[in-house]
């Protein structure tokens, strides 16, 4: 049964408390949030297999720390969308501001528009698919997971990256320290095909290049100092 919640009329705390109260076997599996009006912390800390649809644009930290839930923003999201996500799915129909999916451990973050700077900073296992472009310093210190960019990437992509995979279809303005282009092997095509499919993108996996760690930052090297 669909629950509709007017955020302007009823406030944020009551909304998040109601969403937090949903158990694994809840029958209130479908929620619609109207009048988000750029509010912060909408649908944060969820831990139930529910679907939350936000009708409009949101502010900071939308769907942060998500577990299990599917959160769909029908608008744009402010800084830190799906920050530290553990599992589940977050979809943003519009653009996402800086550090989308930062430190995420798992789950899938889909941004249908562009993501700005620091997308996937310090990602630790999350999968992020951006249909448009990403800004500078994306995947900075990325540790695990996949960042897929169907458009272009800004300056210093993958700076100081550990072991995440970065797939970019368009141009890369510059690569960060210790980030290099790598061979696209059949297993990477398969990973990418699955992610693009789940993210609703019709981009062809063969059109992407793969980037990752040169693994040269583990020891001090003067060329990596600025």
């Amino acid at each position, binding site marked *: 049964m669909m629950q509709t919640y007017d955020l302007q009329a009823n406030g944020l705390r009551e909304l998040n408390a109601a969403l937090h109260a949903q158990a694994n076997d809840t029958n209130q599996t479908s929620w619609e949030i109207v009048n988000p009006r750029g509010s912060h912390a909408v649908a944060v800390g969820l831990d139930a297999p529910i679907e939350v649809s936000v009708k409009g644009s949101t*502010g900071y930290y939308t769907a942060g720390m998500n577990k299990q839930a599917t959160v769909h923003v029908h608008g744009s999201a402010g800084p830190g969308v799906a920050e530290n996500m553990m599992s589940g799915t977050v979809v943003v129909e519009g653009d996402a501001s800086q550090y989308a999916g930062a430190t995420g451990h798992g789950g899938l973050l889909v941004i249908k528009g562009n993501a*700005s700077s620091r997308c996937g900073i310090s990602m630790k296992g999350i999968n992020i698919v951006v249909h448009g472009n990403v800004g*500078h310093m994306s995947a900075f210190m990325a540790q695990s997971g996949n960042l897929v960019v169907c458009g272009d990437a800004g300056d210093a992509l993958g700076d100081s990256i550990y072991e995440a995979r970065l797939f970019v279809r368009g141009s890369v303005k510059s690569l960060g320290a210790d980030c290099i282009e790598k061979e696209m092997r059949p297993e990477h095509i398969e990973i990418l095909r699955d992610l693009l499919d789940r993210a609703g993108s019709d981009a062809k996996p063969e059109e992407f290049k793969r980037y990752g760690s040169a693994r040269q930052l583990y020891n001090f090297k003067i060329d990596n100092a600025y």
Partner: protein
Amino acid sequence: MCGIVGLFLKDKALEPQLGALLTDMLITMTDRGPDSAGIAIYGAEDTSASKLTVQAEDPDTAFDGLADKMAAALGGPVTLTRNDTHAVLRVPAGKAEEARTALREVAPDVRAMSFGDTLEIYKEVGLPKDVAARFDIAKMSGTHGIGHTRMATESAVTTLGAHPFNTGLDQCLVHNGSLSNHNSLRRKLQREGIHIETKNDTEVGAAYLTWKMQNGATLGEALEASLEDLDGFFNFVVGTKDGFGVVRDPIACKPAVMAETDQYVAFGSEYRALVNLPGIETARVWEPEPATVYFWTHDQAPTPSKKAA
């Protein structure tokens, strides 16, 4: 933190609402910085007079007879319209800069907030709702304006530490961020003869732009140069007599959202600040790129996307 808002009207029908729209936008940003607030309003031009907006700690005494003293110093008619701790001095057309210089002699305790033909700056310590109410900003009309609510990091919470800062004739600046080389830059600018009043970092940023423009740069060139010479974090929104500009530092960690419709161009630190603007549901909303100068003026056809200056 700090919150910035800006509104540049393309549709003249909205001009009577400028103060009300800006006030609403600024109040929404209160929790980004509650210690002081200010608004710059560009009103209708009066070809017979230029304006000096002034402020005093003790306005009852300080404004008493001030118009006469200024009239004597300038050799022409001067009127004073008081608004709480501020007053607008209308001086003979083209004498705004001369008036600002004369004020330092005539009434050293009275501070110049702004000078120009259409610009008025109002700022005080306190919450945006209280600052806007004491000056009745919501009743003001105009073509464009910018507002700021401050969370002080680099200097004391005072009226002079509040934004906007006046950078030149009809020019002003608001800032979200913190400049880290403001002490060395202040010393350099003071050696160049630029007057800097406080220990505030943004005042140095404003003085830097003034200095660049005194040396022949356009505002756009001065903003481009700031990307090289200012160290630290900044989102700047600037106002000129007929325009409105935005620039972010290359790191761009301070938030910024812009919206454009046929009726206006708007800036907010967050989307929340824009949600009550007319037609926002169908506006083009985007995040300004780092290290890119954006500018809009009334003189030119509306820019479809960005750049200029």
